[in-house]
């Protein structure tokens, strides 16, 4: 009787989930274009290829091309071919991360209002194409700074308050991204800063945190609350992190494609480990391949920040 009971229990109650391994067909790889072309940088993109979904872990490196044919057009006129210049990986925050680009164009900066089209060809892969129009430049009109008194936590004190003033063009849909760069001697680094303004829609989180607080590199927002208005964006940063630096405030007027990419990318990152969440399809504007090719017009202002 004991044996019967044990048998029944085993098959009925402890069977739980059984797994069966089955292969799925591999339909081939595609080209990946990642490029944010900005008016303050030479035109550059990262060209890689996709990886079969099966047999990958997060540490896997993606293959970066050095022999792809990358053509760039401006307002439907052939501009030039982009040239391979680097495939170096970087070791950062305990992970290998990509260079931001491996192909660049040596003597042209994107111009606001122009349409740029990229065509990437590589034998054995479908052609990948994408188009973007550089948005009109929205200038930073003024930056005011003041020091505030706030509670410190985990050694972090966001005590420097900056107001970045700009005017949104009326009657059109605009999207923005704000970030800050600190230059000390010859090095640049993206700054951690904070903004709690109501217009903020997306954060650009870093991998770094203090307790449960994730440090943020930038913020993205649309003009749905400020259409056609002058606005002062409040940002806070920790003065003790960035003493004796030149601090650059960068207001990027970005395309809707790029804004959608940020939205879906954030959603993907927030939910991809949750088995109960609905899957997220990260936005892509590349036909024949994957990735994002977007433009931004950058307005920059700076302060020199000395601490006694």
């Amino acid at each position: 009787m004991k044996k019967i009971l044990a048998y029944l229990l085993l098959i009925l109650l402890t069977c739980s989930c059984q797994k069966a391994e089955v292969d799925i067909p591999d339909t081939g790889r595609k080209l990946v274009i990642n490029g944010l072309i900005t008016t303050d940088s030479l035109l550059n993109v990262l060209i890689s290829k996709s990886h079969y979904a099966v047999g990958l872990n997060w540490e896997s490196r993606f293959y970066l091309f050095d022999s792809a044919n990358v053509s760039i057009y401006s307002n439907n006129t052939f501009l030039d071919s982009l040239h391979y210049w680097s495939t170096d990986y970087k070791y950062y925050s305990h992970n290998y991360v990509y260079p931001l680009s491996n192909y660049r164009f040596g003597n042209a900066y994107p111009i606001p209002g122009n349409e740029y089209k990229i065509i990437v060809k590589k034998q054995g892969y479908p052609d990948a194409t994408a188009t973007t129009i550089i948005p009109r430049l929205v200038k930073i009109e003024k930056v005011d700074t003041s020091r505030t008194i706030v509670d410190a936590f985990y050694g972090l004190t966001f005590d420097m308050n900056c107001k970045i003033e700009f005017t949104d063009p009326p009657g059109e849909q605009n999207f923005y991204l704000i970030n800050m760069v600190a230059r000390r001697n010859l090095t640049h680094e993206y700054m951690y800063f904070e903004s709690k303004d109501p217009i903020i829609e997306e954060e650009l989180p870093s991998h770094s945190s203090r307790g449960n607080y994730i440090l943020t590199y930038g913020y993205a927002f649309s003009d749905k609350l400020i259409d056609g208005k002058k606005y002062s964006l409040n940002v806070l940063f920790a003065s003790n992190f960035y003493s004796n630096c030149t601090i650059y405030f960068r207001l990027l007027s970005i395309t809707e494609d790029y804004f959608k990419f940020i939205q879906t990318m954030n959603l993907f990152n927030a939910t991809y480990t949750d088995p109960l969440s609905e899957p997220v399809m990260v936005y892509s504007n590349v036909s024949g391949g994957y990735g994002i090719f977007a433009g931004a017009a950058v307005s920059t202002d700076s302060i020199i920040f000395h601490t006694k």
Partner: protein
Amino acid sequence: MLRFRILVVLLFVFKTAYSQNFTISGFVEDVNTGERIIGAYIVDSISNNITQSNSYGFYVLKNLGRDVSIHSTFIGLKSGSITLTLRHDTAINIKMQPAKELQEVVVSSSIYKRNINSQLGYITIPVKTLTTMPALGEPDILKSIQSQPGIQGGMEGSAGVFVRGGSAGENLFLLDDVPMYNVSHLYGFFSVFNSNALKDIKLYKGCFPAIYGGRTSSIIDIRSLDGNNKSLKGEFSLGFISSDITLEGPLFSPKTTFIISARRSYMELYLDAAKRAGLMGKDFPNYNFYDLNARISHTFSQRDKISLSFYKGKDNIRNIAEDNIIGLNEITTYTIQERSGWGNLLGSLRWNHTFGNALFSNTTIAYSKYDYFTRNEDKSVIQNIPDPEIIPVRIYNADYTSGISDLILKTDFDYTISDNSKLLFGGGLTSHTYDPGKNNFDLYDINLGKDYDTSYANNIIDVNEYYFYLEDRYNFSNRLKVDAGIRFSGILNKQTSFNIEPRFSANYTIQPQLVLKAGYSRMIQYLHLLSTSGLTMPTDVWVPAVEGLKPLISDQVDVGFAYNGDNKFFLSVEGYRKWSANTTDLRQGSSLFSEFRPWYEKTTQGRGNAWGIEFSFAKQLKKLSLDINYTFSRAFRINPDLNNGVRFPFRYDRPHDLNISLNYKLSEKWDFSAFWIYGTGYPVTLPVENYKAGLELVNWDTYHGGTVVYYPSINNCRLPAYHRLDLGFRRKTTNRLGDQILSFDIFNVYNRKNAIRMHIRGTSIEYITLLPIIPTITYTLKFK
């Protein structure tokens, strides 16, 4: 060949009539139990008038001549005829007897339930046939429903039914006119309906009569027994997973009857034994479910009867893990306790009243509630030796609750205008109270020195839903029958809505054996069921069509025919096309539990369309019955916020669905049954490629290195095909105690590993399967 016999009792004479158009009305009852019989046919063979008893056993035959010869037919009951000479309108209660002859024939879900004149999209499932299907221990309504054409059971471990491209929340289960929101125990393995207490099951999946509404895919109208008014009887069933007992009989007098039926599982006994024997981990949760049906009915007179019904069912999961760490001077005890529970509570009071001899009414006041809770408690205490005082160090509680409750008032009238026209009308009001989810967290930590108490709660929402309807069932001739109705419905909230739902169906008899049918119906649903990852679970949340969500609307067109091959076989073919507006899905990345946003910010609405063709074939021999149901169907969704606005397959899109059931009477004592199901695998969303999507600042400095998984579209892959064979053997004997039935059932005979979920693991795709081969033994005693 059925033979008929009627025992007629003349109870009352209402009035004297001198015309030649007489009316006979009354109730159809089982002579042995006094149960009123639903759906019995009553025929006057002289005038050829025919009618059917309604959901309360009431019938009316109008425009009869002075001489009548009454026949009555119903599955498993003897019927016959009696000739009368009428002098006035008369009330006759027709009493039918069980037919012994029928015991020689396999009573199955076969031809008996089929009537070529029944309307499209309508199926009746005789309760007696539930025992003829192999089951996981006990007869199961849901399994029978899921075997019908056009209806699927979803994935194993998923509760509910999926009808003609609709989701689980689009089906209305009515138990004695009261909606029931959760219809299964143990994640869909058992239905909440205890078959011992049931009398009748009707299912509508198209051509909906105007009396029904509130859901867009199906109506499952289940009626429970009134209780035997002749003698005390009962039934006891002992199964491997659960047991049940039913008692019924008269209470003080034959006018008052009761029935009470209770069921409980005892898996926790096995689980505890297995844990003690080391067969499974101590942290494996304990589980049990129970349900209780009770009903008291009192017949005041031929005209008035009241019934008081009660149902309560509950599923409980509990897990406790404890660990002690003994130090030099203290003992620290860590306890983790997790509890979840869900269930229904229903109560109703119904009053049947007959006005004159042709107008019948039913008025119901009812309450229905479904709730779900989960509670996690994480506690650590310390005891300093030898001090007996126990000091709490850290106590963390997390609760989640959700649910819905309804208060219902409705009244329905059934008026027979003439021998070829019947008018149905009525209305109702339901006050819904929605609790779409509430999270509470509280923390006491001795090191923090204070309590933290946080809640994330969706507002409780009260919405009143109303309807009224009018429907005429008209026979233009012996060949053409039309059922036309209109239903008006809406909600009374901050904004009052008013909608019209037209209904129409027609049957045309080409030959006595062949009937062509067609129909159209619009259904409107004022509530939505939000599900997690497409799985239908007890955690699903009902929300109202408010806060920006629009009511779900479906328009369905049906055409088909039914052919009766001289009672030797039955063939039915039905085609349908359904358009749905305002289908509700979770937005991408949303989760019911993982994020604390209001439900209306997590949802998005789109459109759906579905079409299919359903074949139903039944063959009846003396010892063998065979049912084959095959459906080819497709179902899609379009939502501007999902899948880049491109159409994608509905998560329960199953092009091919085949069910074969067979019953064979091996001997006087032994029956054999088999059931085989085959279905195309359900769609799932799987990534096919990964790529690097890093740009300056975006996704660059993330701990997974900026890798994105690429889903080409929603539901881009399919699980492997689902198929399964179940077998059952039943031995029936009779002794002085009563009828004894010993059932041996084997679920999933060839141990098919049917997938319920897929995911990528390493270098392959893995399928998670749930139910292996499961043999069960059940003993049932129907005592006298």
